[in-house]
């Protein structure tokens, strides 16, 4: 079953002469165990798509379904619960809570979901060690570098029973090797059964996905899936 489904979704921003059609009749499904990357120039609708998928925004037309449930039909509480337990977000703005340490930030969604603080803390410590931040447990966000904060945000997004992970340029502040480590984490979360959507303008990052969706002016113009004959890509050796 698809974890995320967008059915003929339209979304406009603004009105009158300033009206922008951010998404025009976009349909997309993402299955469990599948990572889909969304690429496109600035203003092509990438972030709008992600906001709709996460229930942070509502479409003007069409439907968004997460695990078969249409978001428009859900109560405010049910939607909040879904965002807290089932959906993980990594956005460009990291949204770490400044008054909480790294481990408290990561444990927060688990505690909000009803886990005991002690157990949540233990899970958070494990999640931090997976992003190579075991030694930064007790630091506050302003005591960490941009890259470290980014990794805390990723640990928080991937923790718990997330069925859907939404990432908007998750490697933004990281060097290429750490960036790759983050993509590996995202990839392994998806390989463990979550569905993932990754918005990026970096082709090298999008390449970690199973499918790459190209958006232009709010519409999907193409989708790149796996190759039938991958060996044809490797350089051929010629005789001397």
């Amino acid at each position: 079953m698809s974890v995320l489904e967008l059915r003929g979704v339209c979304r406009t921003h603004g009105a009158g002469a300033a009206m922008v059609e951010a998404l025009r009749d976009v349909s997309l499904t993402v299955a469990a165990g599948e990572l889909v990357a969304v690429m496109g120039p600035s203003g092509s609708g990438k972030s709008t798509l992600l906001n709709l998928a996460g229930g942070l925004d509502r479409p003007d037309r069409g439907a968004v379904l997460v695990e078969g449930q249409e978001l428009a039909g859900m109560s405010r509480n049910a939607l909040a619960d879904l965002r807290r337990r089932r959906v993980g977000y990594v956005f460009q703005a990291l949204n770490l809570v400044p008054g909480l340490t790294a481990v408290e930030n990561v444990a927060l969604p688990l505690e909000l979901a009803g886990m005991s603080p002690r157990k949540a803390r233990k899970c958070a410590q494990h999640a931090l060690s997976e992003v190579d931040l075991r030694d930064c447990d007790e630091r506050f966000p302003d005591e960490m570098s941009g890259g470290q904060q980014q990794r805390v945000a990723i640990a928080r997004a991937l923790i718990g029973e997330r069925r859907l992970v939404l990432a908007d340029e998750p490697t933004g502040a990281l060097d290429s090797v750490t960036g790759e480590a983050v993509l590996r984490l995202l990839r392994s979360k998806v390989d463990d059964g979550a569905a993932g959507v990754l918005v990026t303008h970096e082709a090298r990052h999008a390449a970690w996905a199973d499918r790459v969706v190209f958006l232009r002016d709010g519409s999907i113009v193409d989708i790149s899936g796996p190759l039938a004959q991958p060996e044809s890509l490797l350089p051929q050796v010629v005789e001397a």
Partner: protein
Amino acid sequence: MSIRYGLLALLERGPRYGYQLRAEFEDSTGGTWPLNIGQVYTTLNRLERDGLVHPLPENEGGQRPYEITDAGRAELTLWFATPLARADRPRDELSIKLALAITTPGVDVRQVVQTQRTATMRALQEYTRLKRDDGDLPWRLVLDAMIYQSEAELRWLDHCESALVRYRPRAAKPVPEEARQHERA
């Protein structure tokens, strides 16, 4: 890539016979660049003709090892020391194709760009998938090279697309006065 230098580099490690060379060449490239044994022997014959390798007596198994000569060693050193010139590589058909697409009437250039982009993205996805399985450093670096080349091509395609959005073709020839009058009528 030419296997000539590949074989010289392997022979620099010590004498080897054909099957060994083939196996080691494939090992050093993660087993994904298959060589056939005929290619190996043809190349060895040419290297021998050019005085870069020297055949040794057959061993008990009937295999004839080759060793690198001083001239071969000098050739290999030169190869490592010389950067590959852009001009030595095949002409870039893609850039020529796009240049022609822009000036050929009736061609949807954005579609040409997108078709290429999807194909290059597929290749990039495949290289990345291969990289997920941890391999030896030489193989990972070979994959990285292909990853960065594909990425460069995709960036260039993005650039082409943004440039196309702003592109207004220059009028090829001024329209004759007669035709303009005809148009107004």
